[in-house]
C-alpha cells in the first residue's frame, strides 16, 4: 500500500482560508458556466420537458381524446337516428357529458402520475436536489399540468360540441346560446383541469400512484353509487346531498341537465372545485415542507 500524495494545487492558499469564519469566501474551483439565479420560469421549463418526454402523457391524453370524441359522436348519431322520440327543444350540447365524464378518468390518472410516479421511481430526490424550493416544484408541476389538461380538454370538448350541434341541428334541437356554449367548453374544461390538478395534489400527498388513482376514481364515483343504494327514509337528506354534490352531478351542471332539482347550478361547481383544489394545495404544500423526501 503506497502512501498518497494528495493533489492539492491550491492547498497552501486554501488552507488558512477555509478555517476562517463561515460566511467568508469559499475557495476552490470556479466554473466557466455562468451562475444563474433560478426562478419559477426555470422550474416550469423543466416540468414541461418532463411531462412531454414520458409515454404515459401521450397515452392518457390520447385515450382521453378518443373517449370524448368517440362517445360524443356515437351519442349524437344514436340520438339522431331516434330523433322521433322527443329531443325537440333540447340542447344538443348536453350529449357531450358522457364522453367527458369517462374521459376525466384519464386526466385524473395523468394528474396523479405527474407527482406520484416521481416517488415511485425515486426521481423526486433528483428533482428536489435540482430545485431545493419545494413550493416551487409543486407550483411548477401544477401550472404545467393544469395548462396542458385545460388546453387539451378545451380543444377536445369544443370539437365534440361543434360536431354534435351540427349533427343534431336538423333533428329539432334548439340552437345553444353563447352562455351555454361557454359552459360546455370553457366551463367544463376548467372544471376537468381542476379535477386533474386535485389528483396531482392527492398524488403528492399519497406518494403512491395506484393508491392515489384509486382514491380519486372512488371520490368521483362512490358518492353517486352510495346514494343510489341509500333506500332508507332517515338518510334522505344525506342521499340528496350526495346526489347533488357528487362530481358527475357537478359536471352535469355545465350542461344544465342536473340529476336533481336543487344543489349547485350554473358555474357553482367550478367554485366548489377551486376551493377543494386550493385546500389540497395547502395540504400538499404543508406535507412537502414537513416530510423527508
Amino acid at each position: 500500500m503506497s502512501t498518497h500524495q494528495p493533489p492539492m494545487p491550491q492547498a497552501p492558499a486554501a488552507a488558512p482560508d477555509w478555517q476562517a469564519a463561515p460566511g467568508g469566501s469559499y475557495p476552490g474551483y470556479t466554473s466557466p458556466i455562468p451562475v444563474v439565479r433560478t426562478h419559477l420560469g426555470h422550474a416550469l421549463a423543466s416540468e414541461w420537458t418532463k411531462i412531454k418526454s414520458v409515454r404515459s402523457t401521450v397515452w392518457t391524453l390520447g385515450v382521453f381524446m378518443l373517449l370524448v370524441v368517440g362517445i360524443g359522436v356515437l351519442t349524437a348519431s344514436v340520438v339522431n337516428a331516434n330523433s322521433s322520440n322527443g329531443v325537440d327543444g333540447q340542447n344538443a350540447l348536453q350529449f357531450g357529458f358522457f364522453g367527458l365524464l369517462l374521459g376525466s378518468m384519464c386526466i385524473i390518472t395523468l394528474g396523479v402520475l405527474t407527482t406520484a410516479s416521481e416517488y415511485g421511481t425515486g426521481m423526486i430526490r433528483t428533482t428536489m436536489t435540482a430545485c431545493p424550493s419545494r413550493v416551487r416544484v409543486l407550483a411548477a408541476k401544477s401550472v404545467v399540468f393544469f395548462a396542458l389538461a385545460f388546453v387539451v380538454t378545451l380543444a377536445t370538448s369544443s370539437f365534440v360540441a361543434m360536431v354534435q350541434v351540427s349533427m343534431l341541428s336538423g333533428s329539432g334541437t334548439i340552437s345553444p346560446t353563447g352562455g351555454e356554449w361557454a359552459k360546455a367548453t370553457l366551463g367544463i374544461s376548467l372544471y376537468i383541469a381542476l379535477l386533474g390538478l386535485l389528483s396531482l395534489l392527492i398524488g403528492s400527498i399519497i406518494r403512491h400512484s395506484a393508491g392515489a388513482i384509486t382514491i380519486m376514481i372512488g371520490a368521483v364515483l362512490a358518492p353517486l353509487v352510495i346514494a343510489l343504494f341509500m333506500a332508507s327514509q332517515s338518510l334522505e337528506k344525506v342521499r340528496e346531498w350526495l346526489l347533488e354534490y357528487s362530481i358527475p352531478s357537478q359536471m352535469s351542471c355545465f350542461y344544465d341537465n342536473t340529476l336533481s332539482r336543487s344543489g349547485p347550478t350554473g358555474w357553482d361547481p367550478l367554485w366548489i372545485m377551486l376551493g377543494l383544489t386550493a385546500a389540497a394545495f395547502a395540504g400538499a404544500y404543508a406535507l412537502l415542507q414537513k416530510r423527508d423526501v
Partner: protein
Amino acid sequence: MIELAGLTKRYGEKVAVDDLTFSVRPGIVTGFLGPNGAGKSTTMRMILGLDHPTAGDVRVDGVHYRRLKDPLTRIGALLDAKAVHGGRSAYHHLLCLAQSNGVPERRVAEVLDTVGLTAVARKKAKGFSLGMGQRLGIAAALLGDPRILMFDEPVNGLDPEGIHWIRNLMKSLAAQGRTVFVSSHLMSEMALTADHLVVIGQGRLLADTSMADFIRQNARSYVRIRSPQRERLLDVLHEDGITVVEAGAGALEVEGDKAGRIGELAARYGIVLHELSPRQASLEEAFMQLTAQAVEYHAHTGPDPAPQAWGAGWKGAE
C-alpha cells in the same frame, strides 16, 4: 466546502446519524467510510436538504442547501443511480435538470460524452444496466460543472474499466480545486482514491484523518518467517531481544519492519530461511477493527454519565 455541526437524525427511537461534526475541504478527495447502515446515505441526504436533521446543522459553502438559488452549479450529487424515471431518455432526464437550473443545453451533450453515454442518449433509462445507470447519475452530478461533488457508492455496479475511470475522474475533479466527497463501504477502494478519510459507524464519527495518517496508525507491518531450523532461529532472535509470535502452519511473525535485522542474524548463524517477507495488514482489516470497536462500544455502553450535582448547571452558568 461542506460543514456539518452536530448533525443528528433520529427515526423514532433509532438513531441513524449521531452528532456528526466534520468539514469536507476543497482540493482533495474525502472518503466517507462506514459499514452498511452506518448512516452515510442519510448524512448525504441531509446535506442536500432532502431529509430534515433532528438536530444540528449542515451548510454548503456556508449556506443551507434549501437556500441555494443555483444548486446544480454549486453541488452535484449522485445519490441513487435508480433515482430516474425509467420511461424518460437519458437526454431528456439531463435536459430537464439543466433547464431547472438555467444550465446551457449544450452541457447535456458534453456530460453525456464525458460519461460515455452519447450512443444511448435517446434510449429509455429503464433499459440501462446498473453501470449505465451509475454513469447517467454521474452525468447529472457533473451537469452544472459544480464546485462540490458528492458521490454515494459510485463504483457500485461498474466494471473494472468503469471503476478505473471513476477513480481517475474523482482525482482529476479534486485536482481542479473542487470538493469531492465520496462514500464507500470498501476501504480498499478508498485507499486508492481518497486523500482524507471520515469514518462513521452506527451514525457516530469514528475517525476524521488524512489517509496517510490513517495508514500510519492502522496498518500493522510485520515480518513473516519460515525456517526448517525453527528452534535455533527462535533462540537467536530471542537473544537479540526480538519478540516472535507463532502464526500457524509453521510460520513465525515478528512485529515491525525488522526483515533486514532478521536476515543478518540468520546469515551470521548460518540458519536456513524458507521465507522472510515484510508484510502489512490490510487497511480493510484496520477498518473492520475500527468499526467493530464501535459496535462493541455501542453494545456495552454503560449507564448514562453520572448526573451533575444539584445546581452545578446554574452555578457554572454564573
